């Protein structure tokens, strides 16, 4: 009986933990840039200096958070945004569900893209990391490995990272023979080194990679058997670290650096267990990392009971009364709140009316923390028909 109960509890717990993924993995997370421009976000927010200066430049290297975190950031600054719309005599944009998802995908993805490298720092790093023990650049360095100066094509940071990864076993064996420590990479070091190599070679030809296709990355992740060692959902513990716990305030090259750093242990483990080492070609490594990055997009499930409290305390219930008696529709009988995207989209689209009503009633705008947002979402979703 005890065993049966245990089994039952495990099933209940894991089923809540391993919910089916609700947000569809994008195949092109940059698609939302079009929404960003067409809906006029760019009037206030710039990307790399292009656009308005009223709001923050979203291309600054900042992680704005998961889907609901982003939702709460957007929700909380709706009143100030609305004031700007009125001041600039701009029509307040309305979003369809797909537009809202594309937009949030895009903003979420910006951090992933990384930063431009620093040539000066790259020059220092190339020496400090011991790369020049084997590689020559600008006439200086070893001759065991290819001369960076005569590379006939400029390679982007991720192209370099992928090449590094692919020849990891061979390189690490050689380093061991030469008693050289395997270099470790953190922060934007890979980008810096690439920037210096580019400067030193001044090659006119370029080899760039596409920023990543998470949907395809999931397929490659499975194809390369990464999932044998790495869990990707909450509580899915395996031999390697659970990737859903990764610190996502990192760019793709930083994540690639982390992968490289753990590769010696990984190579050993794989060798010991006769598992073949995964080799990436074309855009595969970027695609896989973009998939891993998007593992953090969807939030942990909230608590519907707490969510009900939020619903009451934040005053949602005073307008959205049950039985349709309130000013707003009865959310407990709505059939349009099936997903986080739907909820965020509807919250945004109705915010103007709500703002006016609150103003008339001398009420404050109800801000929502991430927890409040996810709990509210859990509650609304549970009520949805």
């Amino acid at each position, binding site marked *: 009986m005890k065993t049966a109960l245990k089994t039952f509890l495990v099933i209940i717990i894991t089923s809540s933990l391993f919910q089916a993924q609700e947000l569809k993995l994008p195949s092109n997370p940059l698609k939302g840039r079009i929404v960003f421009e067409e809906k006029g976000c760019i009037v206030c927010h710039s990307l790399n200096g292009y656009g308005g200066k009223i709001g923050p430049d979203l291309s600054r290297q900042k992680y704005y958070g998961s889907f609901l975190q982003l939702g709460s950031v957007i929700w909380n600054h709706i009143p100030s945004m609305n004031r700007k719309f009125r001041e600039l005599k701009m029509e307040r944009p309305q979003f369809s569900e797909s537009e809202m998802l594309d937009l949030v995908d895009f903003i979420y993805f910006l951090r992933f893209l990384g930063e431009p490298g620093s040539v000066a720092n790259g020059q220092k790093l190339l020496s400090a990391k011991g790369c020049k023990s084997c590689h020559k650049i600008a006439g200086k360095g070893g001759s065991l490995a290819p001369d960076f100066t005569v590379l006939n094509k400029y390679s982007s940071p*991720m192209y370099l990272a992928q090449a590094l990864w692919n020849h990891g076993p061979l390189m690490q064996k050689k380093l061991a023979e030469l008693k050289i420590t395997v270099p470790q990479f953190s922060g934007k070091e890979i980008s810096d080194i690439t920037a210096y190599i580019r400067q030193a070679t001044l090659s006119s030809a370029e080899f760039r990679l596409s*920023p990543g296709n998470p949907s395809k990355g999931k397929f490659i992740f499975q194809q390369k058997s990464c999932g044998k060692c790495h869990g990707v959902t909450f509580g899915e513990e395996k031999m390697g670290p659970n990737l859903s716990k990764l610190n996502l305030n990192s760019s793709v090259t930083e994540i690639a650096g982390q992968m490289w750093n753990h590769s010696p242990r990984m190579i050993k483990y794989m060798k010991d267990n006769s598992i073949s080492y995964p080799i990436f070609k074309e855009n595969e490594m970027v695609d896989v990392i973009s998939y891993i990055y998007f593992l953090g997009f969807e939030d942990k499930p909230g608590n519907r009971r707490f969510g009900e409290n939020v619903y009451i305390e934040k005053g949602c219930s005073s307008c959205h009364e049950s039985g349709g008696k309130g000013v707003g529709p009865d959310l407990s009988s709505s059939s349009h709140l099936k997903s986080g995207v739907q909820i965020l989209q509807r919250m945004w689209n109705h915010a103007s009316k709500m703002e006016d009503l609150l103003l008339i009633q001398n009420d404050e705008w109800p801000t929502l923390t991430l927890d409040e947002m996810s709990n509210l979402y859990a509650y609304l979703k549970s009520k949805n028909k």
Partner: protein
Amino acid sequence: MEIQRRDFLKLLGGASGAIALGLYGCRNSIDVPERLIELAKRGPGIESWKNTICGQCPAGCGVSVRMIDGIPVYIKGNPNYPVNRGGMCPSGHSALEMLFNPDRIKNPQKRIGVEGSRKWEKISWDNSLKIVSDKMKELRNSGLAHQVAFLNGNAQNGLMDKHFAQFMNAYGSPNYYSFPSIKNQTVPYNLLQGVEQIPAYDLLNAKYILSFGSNFLEEGYSPIYYTKIYSQLRDQSVERRTRLVQIDSRMSLTAANADRWVPIKPGTYAALALGVAYVLIREELYNKNFVQTSTFGFNDWTDSRGKSHIGFMKNVINNYYPEEVSKITGVPAETILQIARDLGNNKPSVVLGGQGAEDNTNGTFTQMAIYSLNALLGNIEKEGGVYFVDVPPLAELPSIVYDEAARSGLEKTKVAESNDYTYPLADFSFDAFTKNILNDKPYPVSVLFIYKGNPLFQTLNHHEFAEALKKIPLVVSFDSCINETSEYADLILPDHTSLEKWDAFSNVPSVGFTHVGIQQPVINPLYDTKNTADVILKLSSMIGQSVANALPFDTYEKEIRFSVEKLYTSGEGAIVTEGVKGAWLEYLQQRGWQIGRYNSFDEFWKLITENGGWWNPIRKQKKVEDLFKTSSGKFEFYSKNLEEAINNVVRKAGGESSENMKKVLQALNIHTEGDAVFLPHYEVVSIEENMPLYLVTYNLLTNRDGNSSNQPMMQELFGYTVHEHWNTWAEINPVTAKANGISDKNLIWVESPLGSIKVTARVNPGIMPGVVSVPFGMGHTSYGRYAKGIGSNPVSLMKNKYDKLNGIPALQATKVKISLAN
């Protein structure tokens, strides 16, 4: 059939009225083929859009064509195409009137009367191509391949230019010419910086723009590109926005939109530019670091033989102080001080030179003087300054394996090479070309191809070119409508209109990023016409294997695909939709990303044709030797290139001597002596005729090269700023008008030693006293019912004057008088 304006207004129904007018029986005005009318009546009414490149002028704007049941009915700017970003000029809308023009040539024509007799008979494509190929084979077999010449009047960078050049090279003639030659206009930049390109200007990042006669909102290579940028600049508060000062003899569209218009006497822009340089130097407002490290000839210097030379600074300080410059230019000395101080104190500031300054006998030196201000400001390849865009990574056409006939032909002297000392720096001189044909020098021309352009309407002294055409046994035109020039052709092999054809354009000069636009048919050809590029492919195969091997393509479309495939493999840039905002593309590229990933070239091709083109706003890192391709490796205030070019001519004139130098300088219209010849300086424009008023002409956005005159909408819009329609007018200052007893809207004669034209006087203060300005575009003696006999052509008044260095026509160097016409 003569169309009066009132008739046109009755018919006017907007651009999309083409079909409607056809349906309502107005087919004499807008000729819609019967099969399309039937389709329009019975079709299901399905809408679709297709992106292509506008062919109305060389500006290369991207357009989206709306079609109902596959019939084009409306055209708008392609919002994703970075050159025009959705903008479009009136002429672009009018491409439908070209497509459905009632005066289109519907099949190949053979002239049966004398030149200009307008007697033609229909001929099949097979027969016409046989006539041409037989003649070309005969010449080639007789060792006379060089006697074939080709004039490409389409001043555009792109595949068509390379295609024709490849054909002519493989055939064995050195006589392939582009006119007006873009390279002629690059001469000043080549002399100072060693770069054979038109610069682009980073207006978006400049705080102050000083324009010397550059009517960039109307007359530049791409007015819509600059209009878009300018409107972005003006969309700021008055305190923060970029200031534009326009120097021009007339208040052009650009001057009217500027913060300040500074009127100037025609032909004196160089003096004013050097007056501004004087103030920058005296008040130490120039970039000393750039001048010291990256320029040559600023200070006095001594050559390897120990000879002392005067530098730019001394020449400017001694000769171009404001009081003196004011006397030359008519610009008050206080104004010179003010604009120079504003230029030096509002950095980044940028200086532009354009048509008003360039189209004169002293154009090269004028542009050198203007461009040298950018060097003084340290503007080369700097934010808010000037730069040169990278060439797109298109595939080169296959290497030619020259046979003996081709080698022998290509060794011959070019027909357009001047026989005297003139035009030593010109890529192509129309003047020399015409004179040499008339004199059979260095040999007769037996076949002449003319693609686009209409020299007998557009060029100076075109009566002389008409005589030259009469001398050529076989003149082949590719015009879509008969015009002044094609009336002299023996054969007309009609081209498709731009909405029916394939082409690929690249890097419109002065546009600030690398780009390639794909022109594609939006409708099947209406008539029995062919893309001239395909005609050339056919001729290649008919002439012989060695010529055919140079162009191994079944169709021009396949040649475009071949060329574009390298864009795909390069991994550079992006399809235009992917990065319509350059900053975004730059953001990704800085981080090592490419925007689009295409699984195959077929996918890339599908996207590029769907969206209109490819672009790359990120410039490659440049080494110093890429920036300054001069012998000193620096920006040369003292142009050693010019010194060498002139010394070469002196050697040809009999050897280096002061006498020969004098003779050569005289032939080149250079009155200055000594070191100043090789420095940016002011050359006096010699105007012999005893006439009181300067004549200046300009192009309007509605009819930039006179080729839109056969489109009624453009005739209606011709003088939209002064409310003159289907008519040519002359703008004169009230002071000039009063002195000549003329009132607004009087009919007047404008008379030069070469003739006179009757136009409507428009009296307004937007032109300087002592100047008459007449727009170019009307006054056709041919070119169909909407163009012929309407308005007047100011070029017909102009003497045969050119900048004797680079061959550019001196359109501002004629003086005239005016009188009331009864």
